[in-house]
């Protein structure tokens, strides 16, 4: 018998049919004698609709509330119609869904009158998406003859600080409460269904976990209940060696270390947010990424031991587009203490996120990669601050570049990896504009022209036999 936290995202429970599929997955585990804790996100699209609606309402258009509520009600009632067969259960669930939406409606009217949307209120509005999903999934499990009860993250006992929109869990307090409230249910073979993302501070005021969202809820619960595994169910087989849209024969990776998984998340691989991995890393609880539409596949296992098992040096390659490169040149930067720090401070003050840096001290040159949509602000700020005061004499930018990141835990200390990567790229006559190795040494990333990106990725993919 294992205890498993299973998290199902929006697409996994996007329709009534999908929810039945989810219930089936949970039942199968139950049959084997495993104890399952379910964490759900809102139905696909609902979170964005809620945010959009709440923001529009600050402009005071009360008339639209009715239509929105009608739409939202219909969507959920239709889902219930398909997900649940038992007539009585179906009507009960519909009734509860309507009650929850009535509550939402009152808050929406409030926003409309007050004309503002604080982070605190926004968290409240958002919570309804997950509450409705938890209600429906729990009822569907009952329709499958499982005992089930649904909870908000708050009711389950997760406690956070009061940073609305991006709260941090108070792990000890949380563990204490979760054990008290959820553990007894598992003993009685009840499957708890818990809203992801939505939690509360110590005064019981709703908060949300922000980046990392429902995955984070799953790992927090996993740690609190000291489970055997956390499974993140999604719509792909797992973490892949590369984007299958670029590399047709990209493969699913069977195992990754926590460090590798975090690295890949940073570089935009469709994986977990590093924040969501934090709790399990400390407790060595394995996380498995699995496909709800292909449950036969075991997916990707993220765990402590994974890096020892594998032999490959490069495990995955990410292509990051929509980025720009800024080059700052100036003799004034040579040997001037703190001049790089100045640059980062300027960018930081203007909320510009630096993704990659490389310097060539001899040439008095620093290159920086940022998101495309921040380029104009970054350039303007840097020019104002640096030009004309001996710090830099030339600042240029290129917006037609991309970053390629080759990742793998065994790259650490392994000589010759870089040269293999770069000669594979050079063979394709592709010019490399900038190179950086992160301090984690788990990746080598470099910059090429955007049009060369896919070719370079596939050259490295082949060089390290990732399709084999």
């Amino acid at each position, binding site marked *: 018998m294992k205890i498993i936290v299973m998290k199902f995202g929006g697409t996994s429970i996007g329709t009534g049919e999908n929810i039945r599929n989810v219930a089936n997955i949970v039942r199968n585990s139950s049959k084997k004698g495993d104890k399952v804790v379910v964490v759900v996100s809102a139905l696909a699209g609902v979170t964005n609709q809620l945010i959009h609606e709440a923001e529009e309402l600050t402009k005071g258009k009360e008339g639209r509330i009715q239509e929105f509520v009608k739409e939202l009600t219909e969507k959920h009632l239709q889902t219930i119609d398909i997900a649940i067969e038992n007539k009585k259960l179906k009507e009960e669930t519909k009734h509860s869904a309507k009650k929850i939406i009535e509550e939402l409606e009152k808050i929406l009217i409030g926003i409309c009158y007050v004309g503002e949307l604080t982070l605190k209120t926004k968290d409240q509005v958002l919570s309804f998406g997950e509450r409705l999903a938890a209600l429906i999934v729990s009822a569907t499990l009952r329709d499958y003859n499982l005992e089930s009860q649904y909870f908000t993250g708050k009711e389950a006992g997760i406690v956070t600080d009061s940073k609305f929109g991006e709260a941090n869990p108070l792990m000890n307090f949380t563990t204490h409460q979760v054990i008290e409230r959820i553990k007894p249910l598992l003993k009685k073979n009840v499957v708890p269904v818990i809203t992801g993302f939505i939690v509360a501070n110590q005064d019981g005021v709703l908060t949300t976990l922000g980046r990392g969202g429902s995955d984070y809820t799953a790992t927090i619960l996993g740690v609190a209940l000291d489970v055997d595994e956390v499974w993140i169910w999604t719509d792909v087989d797992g973490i892949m060696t590369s984007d299958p849209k670029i590399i047709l024969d990209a493969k699913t990776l069977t195992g990754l270390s926590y460090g590798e998984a975090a690295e890949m998340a940073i570089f935009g691989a469709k994986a977990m947010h590093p924040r969501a991995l934090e709790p399990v890393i400390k407790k060595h609880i394995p996380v498995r990424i699995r496909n709800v539409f292909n449950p036969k596949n075991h997916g990707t296992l993220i765990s402590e031991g994974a890096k020892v098992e594998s032999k490959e040096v490069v495990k995955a390659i990410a292509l990051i587009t929509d980025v720009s490169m800024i080059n700052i040149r100036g003799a004034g930067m040579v040997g001037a203490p703190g001049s790089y720090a100045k640059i980062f401070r300027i960018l930081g003050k203007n909320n510009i996120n630096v993704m990659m840096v490389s310097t060539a001290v001899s040439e008095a040159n620093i290159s920086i990669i940022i998101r495309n949509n921040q380029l104009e*602000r970054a350039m303007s700020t840097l020019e*104002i*601050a*640096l030009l004309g005061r001996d710090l830099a004499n030339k600042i240029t930018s290129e917006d037609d570049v991309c970053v390629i990141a080759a990742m793998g835990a065994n790259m650490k200390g392994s000589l010759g990896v870089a040269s293999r990567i770069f000669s594979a790229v050079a063979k394709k006559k592709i010019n490399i504009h900038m190179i950086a190795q992160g301090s984690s040494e788990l990746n080598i990333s470099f910059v090429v022209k955007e049009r060369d990106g896919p070719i370079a990725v596939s050259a490295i993919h082949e060089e390290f036999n990732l399709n084999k």
Partner: protein
Amino acid sequence: MRIILIGYGVVGQSLTDIFLQRKIENLRNYGFNPKVVAITDRGGAAINIKGLDLKRIQSIKKREGTVAADSVFGHRQMSGQDIIQSIEAEIMIEATSTNITTGEPGISNIKTAFNTGKHVVTTNKGPLALSFPTLIELAEHNKVLLRFSGTVGGGTPILEFAKKCLEGDRIKEIHGILNGTTNYILTEMAEKKVTFEKALESAQKLGYAETNPAMDIDGLDSAAKVVIIGNWIMNKKFTLKDVDIIGIRDITLNALEIASKKGKRIKLIGSIDGKPTVAPKEIERNDPLCVNGVLNAVTFVSEYAGRETIIGRGAGGIETASAVLRDLLDIKHHLANKILS
């Protein structure tokens, strides 16, 4: 530095001329790289967040009458307000026509710029004449800068002279010939003995006076400048309605003759000496203030430095645009210090 230019008439176009001619030089000497991301006129706007091609926009403006006619970057529906609201930039330059009764669209443009965190350079006197104290307060409240060198003296740095060169001294009185058109008319009448109407006609022919010359000859333009000087230099809080104004419509050749016999001239003088006034006054012919033609002159009477007079051309598109450039550089230095502090 990203700039939104609202109003693309004589001043606006002169400014883009300067940017085109001096681009590289500016960059080198001042570390200043202007990037005009939007320009508007009454026909709409042209927008390019990567920076507009100014040559292209200039020729479209000349050919089509509006920058919105640009087939790629033009937006006929967008007003200055829309642009200031929605486009990210460090600076908004307000160079629309002066409206001395409502101050619009200038006042709204400036307020919106403040509200969205943009620094403002204005050549438009209307907003300042009507609500100088309010605008200064709003700028400080929003932690942005407001600059307006071009509103007084065109290219002649009258405001900077008083603010910087007489720093620490106490300025007691200010008297000035603040309007080139009226000074030209009075000079013509006195020297060529032509009637007021004739002199006005000739000023209009030379492009000094507008088709509707009321703002100049009724003294409103001078009064607006008195408001700006009084508030900025002497720290007095007042607006246009507090200025006593008499224009030059009723000046006769006879009156000029009489003054001349006494070795004096009649000039339209704006003064801040107790109460702010604008009125035709007799002054000594050899007073340094007594300049002719379209020239402007301002005398500062200060506690220690005594009388200082600064003389120069008071208006003109390129002169005013050069004042805007000074303001932009001043803001760039402020920002650079702030960012690095």
